């Protein structure tokens, strides 16, 4: 039996970085393009030896995951020119590959009871890497589950894909998601479980023993709250949108222009109404989007969010819809909620976990919004009484319009521009 917490060599750590990057590119879409510059620098850290990687998502009763097999190494193991002729690989050799994979992935309980295993979608991707060169990988989705009443977190992962033939090969086993242990993040940090490799000393390949820590519902919920907080804290567009909504909240509109300070009570009330409407709006679509009663592709939603910022910024400059701010804020909330839901939809959570996640995520968002308002309100209150406020509001509105346009461009063109790079 081997010790699970294999001491990773320095090199393995580097591969983690590489994998993390790979997933950012794969999973996140265009609005994260500003991160691509960072990715460029990070990939220089990668290791020149292509290893396999198995990523696990631990659910309530099953484990889903993704296997990444470098085609060069796979060809060493099974031939069939999988690397030399990788065009339409899945289409041509899908069945043989599936059969091969089934023979070499055999999870079982400590008592020897075999788990069920289902292979999902397979596709070939090109992995860009400055040091190893670009290499091709076969990505395989899979799901596995123990027989009923058997432990999900402690089992033998008897896995020798490629390893049955290539003695120098290594397989990095990582957990990407484990709701009950609070491992649900927006980036794709993974937690290492170990390395499946030959025991060189004894010339053996032992079944890998997986022992994952227990989690809890409370820990899962807490994590969703902090995810909600960081979603707002790190989302520059949401933060600035909120500020833009609040810029004219203290004022009264007179003849299509912003007039004087509306008074403490009216101002505060306005502000609370706007924030509440926005919250109701995004809570509603977050709920509907997360349970997938509503689904929109993320690109138009991200563009629409930029539009809401543009419109709000214009309104902060010159009143577009005075007295109807509450409805507009509510409507805009609906749009923003759909983007929040995007975070939760791909997690494959059980109903219980999903409900707790929506709740926790929303609580986190509200906490962060509240914090922001408490921070900004006194400043707005003081400033809006002075004669400088017109300047502050107009300058702020113009800056926001520019930013909104830049975001819109970025999200339509799917590539960053100098403004979005500046604030990233």
């Amino acid at each position, binding site marked *: 039996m081997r010790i699970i917490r294999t001491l990773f060599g*320095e090199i393995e750590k580097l591969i983690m970085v590489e994998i993390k990057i790979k997933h950012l590119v794969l999973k996140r879409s265009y609005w994260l393009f500003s991160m691509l510059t960072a990715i460029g620098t990070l990939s220089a850290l990668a290791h020149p030896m292509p290893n396999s990687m198995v990523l696990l998502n631990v659910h309530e009763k099953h484990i889903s995951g993704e296997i990444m097999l470098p085609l060069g190494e796979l060809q060493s193991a099974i031939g069939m020119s999988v690397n030399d002729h990788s065009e339409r690989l899945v289409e041509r050799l899908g069945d043989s590959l599936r059969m091969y994979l089934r023979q070499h992935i055999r999870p079982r309980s400590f008592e020897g009871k075999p788990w069920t295993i289902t292979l999902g979608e397979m596709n070939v991707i090109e992995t860009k890497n400055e*040091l190893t060169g670009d290499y091709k990988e076969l990505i395989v989705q899979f799901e596995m589950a123990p027989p009923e009443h058997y432990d999900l977190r402690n089992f033998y992962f008897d896995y020798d894909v490629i390893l049955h033939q290539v003695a120098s090969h290594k397989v990095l086993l990582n957990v990407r998601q484990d709701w009950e242990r609070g491992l649900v993040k927006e980036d794709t940090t993974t937690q290492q479980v170990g390395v499946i490799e030959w025991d060189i000393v004894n010339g053996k390949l032992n079944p890998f023993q997986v022992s994952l820590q227990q989690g809890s519902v409370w820990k899962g919920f807490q994590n969703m709250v902090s995810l909600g907080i960081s979603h707002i804290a790190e989302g520059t567009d949401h933060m600035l949108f909120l500020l833009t909504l609040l810029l004219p909240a203290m004022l009264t509109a007179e003849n299509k222009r912003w007039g004087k300070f509306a008074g403490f009570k009216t101002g505060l009330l306005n502000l609370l109404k706007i924030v509440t409407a926005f919250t109701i709006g995004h809570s509603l679509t977050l709920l509907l989007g997360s349970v997938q009663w509503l689904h929109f592709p993320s690109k138009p939603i991200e563009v629409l969010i930029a539009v809401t910022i543009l419109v709000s910024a214009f309104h902060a400059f010159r009143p577009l819809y005075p007295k109807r701010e509450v409805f507009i804020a509510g409507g805009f909330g609906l749009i923003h909620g759909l983007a929040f839901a995007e975070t939760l939809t791909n997690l494959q959570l059980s109903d219980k976990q999903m409900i707790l996640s929506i709740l926790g995520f929303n609580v986190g968002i509200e906490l962060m919004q509240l914090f922001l308002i408490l921070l900004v309100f006194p400043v707005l209150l003081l400033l809006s009484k002075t004669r400088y406020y017109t300047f502050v509001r107009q300058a702020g509105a113009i800056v926001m319009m520019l930013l909104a346009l830049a975001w819109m461009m970025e999200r339509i063109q799917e590539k960053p521009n100098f403004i979005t790079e500046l604030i990233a």
Partner: protein
Amino acid sequence: MKAFAFYGVILLPVLGLFSSQNENGTTSKIAPVSVDCVKEKGPAKIVCLAEAFKATLNAEQTAQLQLEYTKSNAAKWSNFPEFRPTRVGIRLGLLNSTQLAAAKALLSVVFSHESEHEGFGEMEGNLAADDFFGQHTNNTKLFSSGNFFIAFLGKPSTTDLWELQYGGHHFAFANTYKGGKIIGATPSFRGVEPSAFEWNGKKIQPLEQEKEAFAALLSELKEEEKTTAKLRFTFNDLLLGPNQDGKFPVEKQGIKAGNLSGTQQKQVKKAIELYVRDLDTETANEFMKKYLAELPDTYVSYAGSGTMNQVSDYIRIDGPSIWIEYSVQPSRNFPGTTHPHSVWRDRKSDYGGN
């Protein structure tokens, strides 16, 4: 001790004048050895030159060069380029010409000078290869002869334990001394990319000789001997590269050299010599004596085509003490060519047995 340092200060700037050095710092002529070290021999001479080199450095540089002897420092070698801090010691690129000449004077006595492409020539060839690689890939920041490191683990001494560690991309050696004797010359990594090229009008091929010796050894084997020697598995890299210390297989695989003919055994000996005889003659003789005595119990195994010029070709020499692995790698930046990774280890005296 102080006297050495004193002479070092006086002598080395003078030595600097003798050394002609090109911009890349790769093909510097070896400076004449300082007068005071000429009298010394063997490890004492190495200590003397080590101290002389150290005396050329300023305090900050000395702190980088001179470290404690610890297992963890000793294990900090790699065959990979320094794309993140992996190695310890001072970067050759941080040395001025005088200091570099002193470092090379030290390395010069550690290696042999018997053949153009072996010993000191092999080490210099590997440095040139990294400059060539850097220019070819337009990445001289990562790949250059300046990106090699030299470290003293423990104070150079003719009584106490210390290690002279040197390495960079595709190269590493670890000479461990104690009581004025060498007690370990491994782990020692040899690789190069590209495997053969022209540099300043000279042919550079640090590991072609090794490759040819292995190919010749395998071609000397009869069919049934080849079958015995062939490994069941595929090896796309070395098993016992960096961070794989002390993991020697309990069971030896392949064909026993004791069962081979005299001619075949000579080929095994020749291949071993191409690693061991990189070191100065005295040290090499000592290790060869041991390895030859153990030759009958030494095994040869291989995987791949046996020609040693195809990707995934692999050979291993595994004896009671000696361990050599050689693996043929694809070459990304020089399409259509291959490049070698190889390691010489010793089951008993890696890191001097520490």
